């Protein structure tokens, strides 16, 4: 008969098994608590009202205070949060959202369908300042079905709606707080997220404390301090000196040195933001497709990424970032080939006596002016006279938004960063006729009815496979027409103490430190 009693060896094995399993399923509140986490950031928040801001970093903060309906992870997968599931009607015009039960806002108010309807009504209110309203412009109404179910009624079918409502833009706000604070809700945010705003010292720091009544797993970090340190070099120094734990966007030129430091971990996932040189398709020398192709061949994008951006970007291989749903690496790449560029210009009867006007913002994107200067040099190398003008951002945008009759744009640098991991915001938001200025910032004035038709169909298509086919078709079309010099996709760089483990960093330039552990 086999002895089934626990001998010493079995006992040790069992103990190890329990320990290993225990660690794996251990609730986070059993892990060592981190009393304070200090994050060095570059700018102060203008507002923490989720529907009133446009900055990714502030949306990141808002996510911690309000929570969202869904969470889109770095791979693009949707996870239930305040919403548990959703259904789409056959015509694609109604999304039924099931809400999580038993959740309360941090002020004790119940989270339910009324609160959600209230949040949507705020966004629909034409008097409210909602800069990103366009992102949910397809939703025309939010109807309460029962206490924990709402229906979103759409004006037109929009396949990527679920990731869209994972944005903090539509995060529910405590109705009681809205009533209590009125206009001052901007400085007194109350949501159902894992943190509560504790203190906001203007220009200096924002302090958040853990919401002890949070519906989800208890965060390991008791207090998060967002320390405002505008100078990236100082943020890095503070990280090295141990005065902050996380350094948001260190200087690209110092990334190599930070990586070499054993006390620092550097993460730099590819971002959704593409950087490009827009080429005016309706005015000037770049109306000729051969000229646009020549300009694409004239620039060594790999060299720009390596030498100017210190490897904190990757050359574009399709019209959208590889991180979004609907990205395809194009079969044909515009490899650096100045001879081919010259040949194409000859075929296009390019007038070399003309000076091409280039424009660039300064300080908006990573080394934007330097990148533009390099491109100017590349164009000059193939015999094209190019004059580069630099502007501050407000002046620059004013120039980009002029209609074609008034537009003086020929070649201009711009960046475009979709807020969700879906190609729609890139392909629709930059290349359809509808977004040509002054209606949108599709300042290359690309307008192709065939392309528009494909994009419209992609919004209506609920089948992901079929939708991918349509997005691929649209990508191929615009890639071949080349309304941009396809430059690079930025990386989101974040450096933190190597003691920190378990940081979640997303391609939408966000990071979530509340379940980290610290060795």
């Amino acid at each position, binding site marked *: 008969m086999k002895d089934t009693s626990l001998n010493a060896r079995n006992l040790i094995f069992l103990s190890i098994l329990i320990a290993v399993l225990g660690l794996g399923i251990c609730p986070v509140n059993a892990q060592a608590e981190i009393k304070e986490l200090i994050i060095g950031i570059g700018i102060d928040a203008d507002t923490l009202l989720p529907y009133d801001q446009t900055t990714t970093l502030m949306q990141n903060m808002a996510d911690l205070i309000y929570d969202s309906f869904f969470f889109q992870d770095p791979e693009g997968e949707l996870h239930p949060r305040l919403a548990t599931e959703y259904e789409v009607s056959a015509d694609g015009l109604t999304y039924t959202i099931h809400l999580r039960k038993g959740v309360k806002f941090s002020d004790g108010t119940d989270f339910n369908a009324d609160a959600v309807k209230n949040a949507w009504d705020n966004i629909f209110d034409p008097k409210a300042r909602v*800069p990103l309203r366009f992102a949910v412009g397809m939703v025309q109404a939010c109807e309460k079905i029962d206490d924990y179910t709402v229906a979103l009624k759409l004006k037109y079918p929009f396949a990527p709606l679920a990731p869209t409502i994972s944005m903090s833009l539509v995060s529910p706000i405590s109705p009681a707080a809205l009533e209590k604070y009125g206009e001052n809700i901007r400085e007194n945010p109350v949501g159902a997220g894992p943190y509560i705003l504790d203190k906001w010292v*203007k*220009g200096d720091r924002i302090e958040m404390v853990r919401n002890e009544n949070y519906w989800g797993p208890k965060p390991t970090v008791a207090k998060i301090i967002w320390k405002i*340190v*505008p100078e990236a070099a100082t943020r890095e120094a503070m990280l*090295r000196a141990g005065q902050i734990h996380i350094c948001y966007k260190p200087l690209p030129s110092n990334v190599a040195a930070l990586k070499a430091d054993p006390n620092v971990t550097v993460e730099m996932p590819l971002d959704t933001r593409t950087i490009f040189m827009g080429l005016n398709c309706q005015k000037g020398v770049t109306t000729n497709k051969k000229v646009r192709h020549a300009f694409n061949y004239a620039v060594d994008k790999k060299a720009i990424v390596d030498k100017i951006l210190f490897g904190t970007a990757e050359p574009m291989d399709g019209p959208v970032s590889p991180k979004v749903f609907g990205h395809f690496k194009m079969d044909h790449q515009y490899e650096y080939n100045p001879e081919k560029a010259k040949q194409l210009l000859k075929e296009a009867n390019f007038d070399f006596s003309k000076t091409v006007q280039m424009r660039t913002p300064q300080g908006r994107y990573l080394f934007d002016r330097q990148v533009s200067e390099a491109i100017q040099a590349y164009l000059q190398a193939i015999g094209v006279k190019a004059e580069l003008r630099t502007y501050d951002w407000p002046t620059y945008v004013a*120039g980009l938004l002029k209609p074609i009759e008034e537009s003086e744009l020929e070649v201009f640098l711009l960046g475009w960063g979709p807020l969700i991991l879906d190609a729609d915001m890139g392909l629709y938001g930059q290349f359809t006729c509808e977004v040509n200025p002054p209606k*949108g910032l599709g300042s290359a004035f690309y307008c192709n009815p065939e392309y528009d038709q494909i994009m419209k169909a992609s919004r209506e298509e609920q089948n992901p496979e079929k939708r991918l086919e349509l997005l691929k078709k649209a990508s191929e079309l615009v890639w071949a027409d080349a309304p941009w010099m396809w430059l690079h996709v930025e990386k989101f760089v974040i450096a933190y103490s190597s003691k920190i483990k378990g940081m979640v960093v997303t391609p939408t330039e966000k990071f979530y430190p509340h379940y980290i552990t610290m060795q």
Partner: protein
Amino acid sequence: MFNYLLKRLISTIPVLIGISLLLFFMLRMLPGDPAQVLAGQMATPEEIENIRRQLGLDRPIYEQYAVYMSRLVRFDLGRSARTQNPVIDEIWARLPNTVLLAVVAIALACLFGIPAGIISAVRPYSWLDYLVTMSALFGISMPVFWLGLMLVVLFSVILKWLPAGGTGSWQHVILPSITLAAFVVAFIARMTRSTMLETLSQDFTTTARSKGLKEQVVIVKHALKNALIPIITVVGLQFGLLLGGAVLTETVFAWPGLGRLIVDSILARDYPMIQGAILLFGLLYIFVNLVVDFIYAFVDPRIRYD
């Protein structure tokens, strides 16, 4: 004296009106639309128009000015376009930091600059004089930004003695005030040296020496006292400039002062905030000049404001 004070106070009113008028129209001549900046790059034209309407920018410019002035006489600087908080609250949150940094920096600069200038003038063309002159040249030429970062590297990263940035304790003030003072101390030292050299060669100094007075008494009581007026002028001007915000120092040391607030507001075309802060600077500058004028009278009894 009281009449003079009253006259000076009354004279500030047209100056402030002039500043507000110039600022209001110059700001609106700048290219760039505040509504567009606030709305962000992806906003629709309808949303931008909505924001423009909320900010009152859709009204004729003379109407906007009338509204602005009618608020101003009631001491209402309006609300920031960016944060939508009252401008005065945003300024008050940062003003104490700016004043603290300016006061400590100017005190340090006087503490080191005046004695250095005196030593340099008393021993002209000696190695001490060359040392002071060279240090002053170094202080003036050194970019504030670079000096700040070097101090951070040395005292925060390597020695770990002082915090690299932020506020909260007296240690936080040390590095930014040294950085700011380095530039001002050079100015003060150079000015002290040149005015002291001038007074030391004048007849009353020779008379004081021939009376058999001790050299320290001659230098401090006779020469320095007469050399103080231009030094006070320089100190006053520099203090006024420091109150205007030391943007680079504030940026390097994450110091939440008014300089950064103004730069951020200009970049966002936040008209109410820029107008409010610049107007306050104007007021502070006038006040500092007034104080300097009274110090003149205190230092030199020949100056009277009757």
